[in-house]
């Protein structure tokens, strides 16, 4: 073996080991302190209009029916619990769902944006997934961009009369993929590559996270479908109450 080949082999082994010892695979939370200050502030600022819209719509819902605050809070806790539980995975490493795709389908993107920032705050403080300085960036990718796309796809499929199971799968799956793409772009904007700039950097980030994120998105899609089937079987009145199923069918 030449010297170069040896180095390459060592690098390959190190890379393989890294996946072997991986303690947990999460949806891509940007960790605490990883983004420069101006990006933290910028992403935070971008989130503000979405949050204000979400808060206003929540306030309206609560005013109409005080009971709904309990329901919304339960939904938030549900998203947190679902995302903190280990889900079955093929590789043996433990991974977690994001749960925001399901939330967007069931409760609408406005509610999820507010619930998302609360869940992300709890995840940062209680589980150290994500962080306080990166809360803005994480909120944008996970509580705004992903759920909005999920919701849009679900509505589009509904209009086109696609089978509900397929549309739920597509919404959750593509929402996850989109979140992962947005996070990669956020990282790339903050850290453009020395050779090739932002675009090359984005490709690199997409590349290193692909092995963990792609299987996760598929599993999340399948799980979301199973959850929705289960809910349709046992919780029809509740689904009608939150407006997921149409009244009088």
């Amino acid at each position, binding site marked *: 073996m030449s010297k170069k080949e040896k180095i390459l082999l060592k690098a390959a082994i190190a890379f393989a080991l890294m996946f072997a010892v991986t303690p947990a695979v999460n949806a891509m939370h940007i960790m605490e302190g990883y*983004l420069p200050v101006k990006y933290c502030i910028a992403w935070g600022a971008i989130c503000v209009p979405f949050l204000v819209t979400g808060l206003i719509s*929540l306030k309206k819902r609560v005013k109409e029916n005080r009971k709904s605050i*309990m329901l919304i809070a*339960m939904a938030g806790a549900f998203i947190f619990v679902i995302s903190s539980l280990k889900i079955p995975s093929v590789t043996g490493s433990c991974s977690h769902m994001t749960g925001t795709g399901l939330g967007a389908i069931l409760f609408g993107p406005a509610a999820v944006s507010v619930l998302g920032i*609360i869940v992300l*705050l709890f995840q940062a403080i209680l589980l150290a997934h994500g962080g306080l300085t990166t809360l803005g960036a994480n909120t944008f990718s996970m509580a705004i961009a992903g759920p909005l796309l999920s919701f849009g796809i679900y509505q589009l499929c509904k209009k086109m009369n696609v089978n509900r199971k397929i549309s739920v799968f597509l919404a959750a799956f593509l929402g996850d993929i989109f979140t992962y793409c947005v996070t990669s772009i956020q990282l790339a904007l903050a850290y453009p590559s020395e050779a090739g700039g932002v675009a090359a*950097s984005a490709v690199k980030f997409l590349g290193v996270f692909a092995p*963990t994120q792609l299987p996760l998105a598929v*599993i999340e899609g399948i799980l979301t479908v199973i959850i929705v089937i289960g809910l349709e079987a046992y919780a029809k009145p509740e689904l009608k109450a939150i407006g997921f199923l149409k009244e009088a069918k």
Partner: protein
Amino acid sequence: MIVVDKLCYRSGLRYVNAGEKFAFSMITLLFCVISRSLVIAGIVFAVNAYLTVKKGHIAAKQYIKLLAVPFTFLILSTLAIIVNISKVPLDAYAIPVGSFFITGSFQSLLFGIQLIATAMASVTCLYFLSLNTTMTDILGVLTKLHCPEILTELMLLIYRFIFVLMDTASAIMVSQKSRLGNRDFRTSVNSFGKMAAGLLLRAFKRSNALYDAMESRCYDGKIRVLEENHPARKKEIAAIAVFELILLVLTIWRSFL
């Protein structure tokens, strides 16, 4: 179930004024991220580790385990920053692959190390807050900072419900396991989905019952709890001020160097 939440109730610094702890960790975190220097990261890491392990009585082993949580993200994304694929080799290292090079520069290596140090130091700031302050105390601070009322109320409710739902979820999962619900990949995926559906259904039912119970006790949209009052001590405030001043001087000094 949630380790951090359990530990913070046992912390030796639990009864220190929450505002003090909040201010300390937030300002230190800011300096960490703004300065991006190895020296400041080192100091912050050492001080936070000392405070949390020695004063807060968190077991060192547990602390190290917790610090390893964001490890995957840290390694993967730093790798993406320091490794480049380009047609021209850079100065630190270059491995030719076909007509391209896997390459990086000394500057980016140094940058990567700085980034890892900053990120780890920031994580210790976050842990200082979360391992020594209970969530209800943090919510108290947020209320004092005039966070919108509906947001703090939602947070309080969600925080409470998390534990209720986690109990339910773990009970369902135990009974699934005892019935071979995790036999192979297919069944475990199916079990997890059904557990989640059942969990949401119960959450809905519970929220109805809870609302009735609270309304019968005159719930009008505000949950008023008596707050334990632990006044800030002058000595602690002085110590925090001196520490942040040192960080400020270091930050300014480093940026002119």
